[in-house]
């Protein structure tokens, strides 16, 4: 009897929509009907509106069915889905689905295709070729390749990755570190989580290459506690890589040693800021450090440290595999390579879109996203996380490029887009930006710690009509103070969404009567 492979994602979002129940149902029905199936729990393709997305192989091509509920399973068997039978949920060959066909998957090349914890799958799909090349290069050559690729920090700050590495390479020290910032706290983002859950070896390989390049022998992956599955998957993958000689002493028979450890964060947004992350790794409160010294000179435990986002490190293997020129040839202006856009919120087709820089925002929202989930007009899009501006429909022709977004006062950041329809209360969104900053401020500097609390109060006064005109002036002054006077991006950028509301949605914060819902809520808490 032949065994048929069935792919059912184990990614958090797929599971949040019932993928585990589907897997149980498929196993049960198959058993009952005497059909031998081999269920592979792959990662997600990132077509989240189609999850749980079940795939089977037909003449070597993966074909998809979705979104599948456990209750659909008997009818799928009736339709002979294991051999590609027709069914209302049939989507045809997965890679021909428009949303996926239009993407350029470099960093996400294997995501959703492989079994995340199969090292064989990883290697059979191009994995560890970058490291093999790196082991035949000098540190200078590896750093030059990363620099020449044009890769910039994908965490949000967009600082050239190669420059960071070069500084660490040139810093003499007996011990150096590689730290991966996997504290993906921005609302509207999940690319780091997907890499860790769906293709963990690519991150391990990227960090290993970083270690080999600069002579660092120890790495830490600092993962948020809100991602329990990513923590588990990374830990398991690290053990597998160690057992196979891809980590530890004498990597692949070379003179290089590199060890990796997962450290769990503890729910502080500020620890996504690199210096407070280092404090946290040292076992302290996540208080932002003054710079200089740069982490590249004096980072973790005072030693030279490469600290990069998951996406930056996960993009390194393909650069070392296919060359700097290959990567650099994608993109626009000074934004080279691909960006992983995470399309979220009130959107019909939300998911992960890896695409070369240069694509207009409008195309992402409407061609990929299909407009709002509710079918109402899109009123605003917050780009780049809770510290990013709310973009107005008049700005939707802006193309994805770090500089072009900055030119309209917006931010590409980590690539997260949160879509809102026209029922959004923009004043409430402005207030939340300040409220969030107040909750998450590390408390080190006054403009952030106190300014955010005052910001909430001033916005409340404006909304209740109390000296609204004067308070609007005050709010702008407060924003200026926070922007100029804060030590890090939290206090320094939390005003951006507020100012974007003032500038592009001025009607939201014009004098008016208090929001009855708000009053109600305050009473209830008390």
């Amino acid at each position, binding site marked *: 009897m032949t065994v048929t492979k069935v792919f059912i994602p184990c990614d*958090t*979002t797929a*599971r*949040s*929509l019932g993928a585990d129940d589907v897997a149980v149902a498929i196993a049960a029905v198959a058993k009952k009907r005497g059909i031998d199936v081999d269920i592979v729990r792959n990662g997600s393709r990132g077509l*989240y509106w189609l*999850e749980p997305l079940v795939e089977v192989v037909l003449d070597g091509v993966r074909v998809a069915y979705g979104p599948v509920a456990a209750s659909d399973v008997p009818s799928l068997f009736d339709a002979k889905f294991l051999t590609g039978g027709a069914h209302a949920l049939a989507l045809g060959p997965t890679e021909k689905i428009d949303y996926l066909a239009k993407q350029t998957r470099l960093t996400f090349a294997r995501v959703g295709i492989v079994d995340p914890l199969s090292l064989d799958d990883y290697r059979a799909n191009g994995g560890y070729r970058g490291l093999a090349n790196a082991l035949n290069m000098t540190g200078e050559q590896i750093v030059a390749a990363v620099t020449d690729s044009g890769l910039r920090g994908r965490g949000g700050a967009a600082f050239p990755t190669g420059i960071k590495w070069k500084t660490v390479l040139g810093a003499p020290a007996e011990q150096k570190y590689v730290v991966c910032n996997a504290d*993906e*706290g*921005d*609302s*509207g*983002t*999940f690319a*780091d*989580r997907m890499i860790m859950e769906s293709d963990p070896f690519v991150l391990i390989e990227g960090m290993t290459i970083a270690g080999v390049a600069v002579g660092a022998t120890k790495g830490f992956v600092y993962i948020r*506690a*809100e*991602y*329990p*599955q990513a923590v588990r998957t990374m830990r398991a993958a690290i053990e597998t890589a160690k057992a196979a000689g891809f980590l530890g002493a004498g990597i692949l028979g070379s003179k290089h040693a590199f060890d990796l450890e997962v*450290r*769990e*964060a*503890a*729910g*502080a*947004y500020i620890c996504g800021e690199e210096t407070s992350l280092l404090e*946290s*790794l*040292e*076992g*302290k*409160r*996540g208080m932002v450090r003054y710079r200089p010294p740069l982490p590249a000179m004096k980072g*973790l435990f005072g030693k030279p440290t490469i600290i990069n986002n998951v996406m930056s490190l996960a993009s390194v293997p393909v650069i070392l595999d296919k060359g700097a020129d290959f990567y650099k040839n994608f993109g626009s202006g000074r934004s080279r390579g691909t960006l992983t856009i*995470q*399309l*979220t*919120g*009130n*959107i019909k087709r*939300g998911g992960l879109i890896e695409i070369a820089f240069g694509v207009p925002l409008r195309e992402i929202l409407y061609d990929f996203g299909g407009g709002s*989930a509710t079918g109402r007009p899109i009123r605003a899009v*917050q780009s780049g996380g*809770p510290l990013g501006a709310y973009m107005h429909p008049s700005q939707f022709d802006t193309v994805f490029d770090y500089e072009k977004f900055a030119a309209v006062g917006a931010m590409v950041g980590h690539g*997260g887009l*949160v*879509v*809102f*329809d026209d029922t*959004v209360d923009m004043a409430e*969104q402005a207030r*939340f930006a300040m409220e*969030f900053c107040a*909750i*998450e401020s590390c408390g080190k500097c006054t403009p952030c710690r106190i300014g955010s609390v005052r910001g909430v109060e001033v916005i409340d006064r404006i909304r209740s009509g109390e000296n609204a005109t004067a308070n609007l002036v005050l709010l702008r002054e407060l924003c200026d103070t926070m922007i100029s006077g804060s030590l890090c991006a939290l206090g320094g950028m939390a005003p951006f969404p507020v100012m974007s509301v003032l500038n592009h949605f001025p009607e939201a914060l014009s004098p008016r009567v208090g929001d009855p819902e708000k009053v109600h*809520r305050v009473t*209830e*808490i008390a």
Partner: protein
Amino acid sequence: MGQGPSQHDAEIRRLAEARAAEPGSLLPILHSIQDRLGYVPEAAVPIVAEALNLSRAEVHGVVTFYHFFRTEPPGKQTVYLCRAEACQSMGSRTLEEYARKKLGVDFHGTTSDGRFSLEPVYCLGNCACSPAVMVDETVYGRVTPERLDEILAPHS
């Protein structure tokens, strides 16, 4: 009911000493205590401080800085409700109101029968299928008030 915190002292000391030699091990130690006991009791502070040669103030400072560490025992299940922007765009404010009313507690509170603790969370990374809720370590997407009832029903 439960044991007093002092009865955990030996366990806490064992967990602290197990990793005391590792650099920067305070957070992993606190995680291991919370994994074991469900929270980090006040009695843990001097024990951990001693094991790591830190002051009590330093350990207390770390425990209270991080939202994830609890200093009180949680309910049997912890319901993490995402309050961040992507969930807001799909109605999480309504869900939040509903959850508070249903459970009769505010954020950081535990129901009087000890079944549920309600915690805010700022992003579960499930933003394409908002609003999101996590119960212990299980994440749910597109959660409406009705769906929340279904999710919590087996635990009630």
